[in-house]
């Protein structure tokens, strides 16, 4: 288990290319009018409620309805298909790629999602740790509680009814907690990330590494 993940390889992957590439494709047919140039920096939505739209990328005109398309992420415009300017395109046509520089937090999240076992929400509900786990978390502290399959770890609270949730998956230590008590979680969203006990020091090491290397 320890050997099947090559941490060096993962970290090298991020080191050589610390970007995420987001393809911008047309949602429907229409005539394209670009509003950005190759290499231009764009911003994602901003404001407390993400109510200020991102940079205007292009306008897609269908049936005299010019629809402004804004960037959903910050980054740099690459592979802009300038030859499509003013042309009619089909739905799903790739127009450009936004090269999004990954932040430290995003890299750590990415690595953790790769190496941790994620226990997902079986239903849309509010989740709480079971009393036993909660007590152990308080006593032993974070990243120390060891769980085994079949153990009652969570309580699912739905419409004032509490259902115990039993853990199924690899045994290990609760490394990350993705839910907040009392806040509703959608079905399929990760609740906790579990890692094997022997993997823990390495994960810690890699996080420290990433934290030191990326600004």
């Amino acid at each position, binding site marked *: 288990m320890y050997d099947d993940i090559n941490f060096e390889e993962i970290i090298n992957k991020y080191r050589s290319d610390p970007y995420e590439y987001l393809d911008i494709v047309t949602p*429907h047919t229409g005539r394209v009018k670009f509003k950005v140039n190759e290499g231009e920096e764009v911003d994602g939505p901003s404001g*407390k*409620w993400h*109510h200020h739209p991102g940079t205007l990328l292009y306008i897609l005109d*269908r*049936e*005299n*309805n010019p629809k402004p398309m804004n960037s959903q992420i910050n980054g740099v415009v690459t592979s802009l298909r300038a030859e499509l300017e003013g042309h009619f395109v089909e739905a799903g046509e790739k127009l450009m790629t936004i090269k999004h520089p990954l932040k430290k937090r995003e890299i750590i999240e990415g690595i953790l999602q790769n190496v941790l076992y994620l226990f997902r929400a079986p239903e849309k509900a509010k989740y709480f740790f079971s009393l036993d786990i909660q007590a152990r978390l308080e006593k032993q502290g974070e990243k120390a509680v060891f769980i085994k399959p079949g153990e009652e770890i969570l309580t699912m609270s739905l419409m004032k009814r509490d259902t115990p949730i039993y853990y199924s998956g690899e045994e290990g230590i609760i490394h990350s907690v993705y839910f907040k008590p009392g806040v509703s979680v959608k079905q399929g969203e990760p609740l906790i990330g579990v890692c094997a006990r022997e993997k823990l020091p390495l994960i810690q090491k890699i996080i420290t590494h990433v934290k030191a290397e990326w600004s």
Partner: protein
Amino acid sequence: MDDLRKRLHKTEERLNYLIRVKDSSTWGNLSGFQEKYTHLKDSFYDYREDELAQKILELEEALSFIEERCEEALSSMERVRIVRSPQRFTLKDILENVYEDFTELSGEEDANIDPSMVTAKAQIVRRIKNKIYSQPVMVIGQEKGHGEEYRNGGSCKPWGNEKALRYMRVAETEGIPIHFYIFTPGSFPVEDYPGAAQQIARNLYALTKLRIPMISVISEGGSGGAEAVGLADFRLMFSHGYYSVISPEGAAAIEGKIREGEKVPPELIDSCAERLKITAADNLGLGTIDRIIQEPTLGAKRDDFAFFKQLRSEIIRATDEVVLKTKSLRAFRAYDVKMKKAEESATEEPEINISWDLNADEIKRLLRYRSKKYRNMAANHFGGQPTSAEAFYRKTRNVLFRLYYAFRYDLLRQRQKQVEKVIKDVSGEGSVLLKRITSPFTTAYDFISRKPEAKKTRPTIERPSIPEELDIWGTYTSPLANEDRTISCPNGSKYGCRDLWVPDLYGEFCGVCENCGHHFPLEYEWYLKHLFDPDSIRVFNSEISSRNPLDYPGFDERLKLDRAKTGRNSANITFYAKVMDVDIVVTMLYSDFRNGTVGAAEGEKFVRACEKARLKRRPLLAYIHTTGGIRINEGTLGVIQMPKCTMAVREYIDSGGLYIVVYDNNSYAGPVASFLGCSPYQFAIRSSRVGFAGSRVIRETTGEDVPPDYHNCRNALKRGHIQGIWDRRDFRKNLYKALLTMGGRNLYYR
């Protein structure tokens, strides 16, 4: 020397005050004065005492001279700066110096539900021939504080206004007069319950018929916030105060179309302050206040004790006047009080003792005078006044109508109701008696001839049925539909709504997104055609027209343009109409004319609509297609429409009327904070926005951003400001249902 140092220090204070009022040190060589002062301060011990005294005296005299010059040519904006000065007196100073003894009822300093609103029970004392007469009053007003952060500059939160209302009711219970002191730049524009607008509306609604004498005194009267404690029997104003529909800065930002975050040019603010006619003299001329209390040169400060003495005399006199007006036996005392008023500097103590207790008849008279006072406000500031012959004809017609409707509803209906009631009682009694007598026989008969028991059916309640209608939607199509293009729903990314073809959207779909139900705005004509029975609309008072009473530059042209565009004279259309054969009176504010803002003409039309609905015993519908608030170009003549229209609404509802308000598109500010917000039945059309101040004003005032859907009607519903949301396509049906369920059998309560 100590005395001289104090005098020098005082000179510095005066100098700084003058610089702050003028907002520059270049005027009148104020920088020269500053140099002189600094020189004297630095070389204080270099002079002999008599030399120093002479120098300070010279400086003082020169300063007094320049202060008087400043006072002579005081501009509106300079008055605003005087009012905002931390050295100006506040309500707490008044409580301490004008009233003999007071207990604050609203909390202590910052341990308070809203420190910017102070309520206190106080004693006011008059000395007559060495005898002391003390009278209890309730003092309510905003407290600006002398620089305390928590006072919020006198900008009251909704719960502060709610507190004021609570103590108004206490005063009513105790039968003591209220003295209101207005020191607010405006209300704090948050929508949290009870809501800035809705609470002001509730306050105004209660104030219209509060059964005690009320006096209000304005120092800083910022629009709606001022009105929350401003509707009174007598309105005084300090000579250096201001009373305005909007802050000069706000007006300048609108006028100059200044973008958020950009600086408004000071010259524009100055000119806006002049145009808005905000000074005491202007307001007295416009009739929005009753009298001015003269302040010393450049405004009273917190240590002007002579001024506080004068204020006590003035406030007692004003209360006396209000009380005496209601008394049957008053001639000599009223004459005496009036003579005092005529004197320019009415500073001496009152010489007669007048009891402020009112009996039932006097209270009735008080309320009648109050009603009349607000009915006549801004009465000469709209166009379309009838000629004397027309006025006579109308008056006669109204008298006849009144007689007819009094006969029809008060006399006949009342008799009919009484007879019905008697018949109902007698038949009820009879049926019980008959049942008692016959029950042994019927039981015996039933026992002998036992039949299979018939299936019991539940008694049916007679419900108002909504008549099935033929499709009337096809008769009118919005001109918006005449365009061959598609449009995207703003909720497209959230709910995956598909693009809508414009002729479909504005034709068949009535401007509603098929997928998510978002309502696209539609013109007011659509509602005229779709809401009311065909050909049932009869417009009245259309000749009443908006004018430019303050001679606001450029406003005449704008009015002319709107008149040409709409073919109407004001932003309020009032008419009789029918909804599924139910007669109603409608008042409608619409966006095409000055964005549905309310001025003297709109207010007058609203009041007349209330009066007509009251006369004809019909339900009143206020359909607000859009309102941008009070029309700033009419200054306080616009603000005064808030109490004026609320008074009309209150009298209509008290007489038994059913008043329903429906908001559409955008409804903001003054109207919502008065005659609309006070309705017990408020509904909104889907996707509309209801609120007090727009997002930008909230950001600039509170420093906090608000979510994009802050004013959405759904949030207004959550906060309890409105009672329901209607789909545009069901408007007619819902309105009919509302009329029947809330209006009862007669569509009129009593």
